[in-house]
């Protein structure tokens, strides 16, 4: 067989590396020029805060997609973990215990996802579609269908406080810090560790990876467990910002997270993805929504925008992976 690349490798890799970055820069410049009040420190903070949940979960969704799977249950996990944390804090009065319970519940769901997918060989779409509904149901059951207010104010600091503390000019809300740190940690995990490299290899060709000695099933279980824990952690932070656990929150969040990743160049078929891409993808989504808010476009139209962005992202993915 004769293998020749029919595409222009230099041009393509340039597009891979910088294509979405370029879109981001143009979008940012456009908003800075034409959207009133866009270029302000306060607005930037608001923008980043608005993408904190999506950003956090994108870190682990990157691993999930890069290994060739995906996870639809994250939105439900956000809701369940928030509600559970609220209930546990209210019952015990202990903030650490509440956070631990929330994160652990998410990790457990992830573990189940990973086990069913990797060991029992059920398709990730179906498995996580099922757990998405089960976990949303649990969120309603735990909270009895109502928002659970949290009456231990020290918990709110996780979502509302800033570092350095207000009224410093450089005060940045804690959730943004957590998001930035997560990007760094998961970037290192993807690029600098055997775990990260193996994740990309499994997404590129699972059977070849297995025959090359990678333990594929344990790897996938770890990825899904991390994903569950991360979604739950994001849910805990969201509960701190809302000062309550809400069973109805984060509906459709999984799709926003996946769109952000795909927009950032993570292939839906697995094997490719970078943390920089994901950061750019998350920011593009944030900027578009932020600009629409500032332009006082009705929220209904934001659904149009998110849908169009998702479609655009998939088209971009298609263009990237197409072999002429």
């Amino acid at each position, binding site marked *: *067989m004769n293998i*020749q690349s029919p595409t222009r490798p230099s041009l393509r890799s340039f597009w891979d590396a910088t294509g979405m970055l370029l879109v981001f820069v143009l979008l940012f410049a456009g908003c800075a020029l034409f959207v009133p009040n866009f270029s302000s420190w306060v607005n930037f903070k608001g923008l980043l805060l608005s993408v904190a949940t999506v950003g956090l979960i994108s870190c682990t969704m990157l691993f999930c997609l890069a290994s060739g799977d995906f996870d639809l249950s994250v939105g439900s996990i956000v809701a369940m973990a928030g509600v559970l944390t609220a209930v546990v804090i209210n019952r015990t009065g202990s903030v650490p215990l509440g956070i631990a319970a929330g994160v652990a519940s998410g990790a457990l769901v992830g573990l189940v996802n990973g086990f069913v997918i990797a060991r029992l060989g059920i398709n990730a779409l179906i498995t996580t579609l099922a757990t998405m509904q089960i976990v949303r149901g649990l969120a309603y059951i735990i909270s009895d269908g109502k928002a659970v207010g949290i009456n231990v104010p020290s918990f709110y600091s996780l979502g509302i406080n800033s570092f350095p503390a207000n009224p410093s000019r450089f005060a940045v809300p804690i959730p943004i810090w957590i998001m930035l740190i997560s990007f760094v940690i998961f970037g290192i995990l993807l690029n*600098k560790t055997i775990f990260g490299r193996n994740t*990309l290899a499994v997404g590129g060709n699972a059977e070849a*990876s*297995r*025959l090359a000695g990678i333990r594929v099933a344990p790897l996938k279980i770890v990825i899904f467990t991390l994903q569950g824990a991360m979604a739950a952690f994001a849910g805990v932070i969201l509960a701190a910002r809302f000062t309550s656990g809400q069973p109805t929150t984060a509906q459709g969040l999984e799709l926003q997270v996946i769109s952000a990743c795909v927009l950032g160049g993570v292939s839906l078929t697995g094997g490719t993805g970078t943390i920089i891409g994901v950061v750019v993808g998350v920011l593009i989504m944030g900027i578009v929504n932020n600009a629409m808010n500032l332009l006082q476009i009705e929220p209904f139209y934001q659904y149009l925008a998110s849908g169009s962005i998702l479609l655009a992202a998939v088209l971009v993915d298609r263009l990237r992976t197409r072999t002429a």
Partner: protein
Amino acid sequence: MPYLQFQSLSKSFPGVRALHDISFPVEESSVHALMGENGAGKSTLLKILSGVYRPDSGQLLLATQPQSFRSTNDAIAAGIAVIYQELQLVPEMSVAENLYLGHLPHSLGFLDKSTLRQNALQQLALLGEDIPPKTKLSSLPIGQRQMVEIAKALSRDAKVIAFDEPTSSLSSRETDKLFAVIRQLRSQGKVILYVSHRMDEIYSLCDAATVLRDGKHVITYPKPLPTSPPLHSPTSSLPPRDTLIQNMVGRSITDIFRYSPRPQGSVALEVRNLTGKGLSSPASFSVKKGEILGFFGLVGAGRTELLKLLYGAVRPRSGSIEIDSRPARISSPAAAIRSGIVLCPEDRKKEGIIPIRSVQENINLSGRRHFSPLHFFINPKRERTNAADQIRALSIKTPTPKQLIKNLSGGNQQKAILARWLSENNVKVILFDEPTRGIDVGAKSEIYSLIYRLAESGVAVIVVSSELPEVLGISDRICIMRQGSIAATLDRSQATSESVLSLALPATQEAA
């Protein structure tokens, strides 16, 4: 005049001149071999013929009419069909639907099932096949699927039919059937292009041959005569085998195996009563350090299955494996590698390489854990130097270690997989499943010398192959498998084509 003519075709991709000024004629009622090493330009030429690529310059003529295909549909409409290695069929649909996909008979928008069935029956009967048209394609053996693909080409009135290595996954009986059909097509006046690496096939089937090398036309046999096209006398129209090979590689290869005996040590691998999927009786054998043990058998004899059990890719039911006289428990490939057994798999694309990762990544995939004390952070410097060292040592042809491995030729991919195992520090037994499948003649002898080098360094080597000359050429000892069990083991001195083949054939005549 020849029906199909290539005239000064050139095609470049950035950095690669795939075809340069290719001209040659292809006659009607002939089977024309297209030969050349990997990268010679055969696939590019087929893709121009089928309308996938457009040439940069030059043209192709059909019955003296210049053609300019904008799409594969244009080529199909002009009567061209290319039967690729990977068939272009829908496994989940019926045979009949596959045959008429794209122009299913219908009335008022509803599928006309009876016409579909009638047409399909007729079309298949032309090829001497009596496959029920309702059969789901995926339930057919590969040989019959190929027949469906050929029938599909004929149903579209194809005049020019090109085959791209059609026999690579066929049994010998299926191959015979295919050849009969190709000869029948030839007698019907079709123009047939035939790409294959197998010299035997070319001599038994083809009456003309064109050799390409590095994108250039080397020679076309028979040399054009001023008179009418040649008669079908393959032996006289093609030159001797050595001349053809010499044309392909640009140098003469007398003995591509270059076997020489080497010292052997103690038993490295002892397998006792191994049973599992694909084996009909327990398998026992042993390999010494420095020994090359060949496994030969017909398709379905259980050779690949045996290797997979040995490697833990499929869990064995029972049996014991000893490495260096110590029992080894092999429950997974990861465990096999840690015990010192490694595998270069049969299907490189599906089981060997990670196509969309770099050559360097592919080389370091397994060995990288030795570079990192905590088995957590990778060691970029060691990975770079290891990849560079391996690329040099095995002379892997790649522009840079960062090149995606899918862009390498088959031989170089195989070498990269070998490099992966040479990056392990504890390899005692290496398993090769069809090490030279789809690899051109020049690269083959390189792979053989790498196998010898491994054996000389004291590694026990097992080579599974369905090419008899290869097994005979490189093995110290040969295990012959038949219907899921090891039928016999012969020393190199006892093994001849006849003795090995007669042991490999089923004892009783199979019912037809």
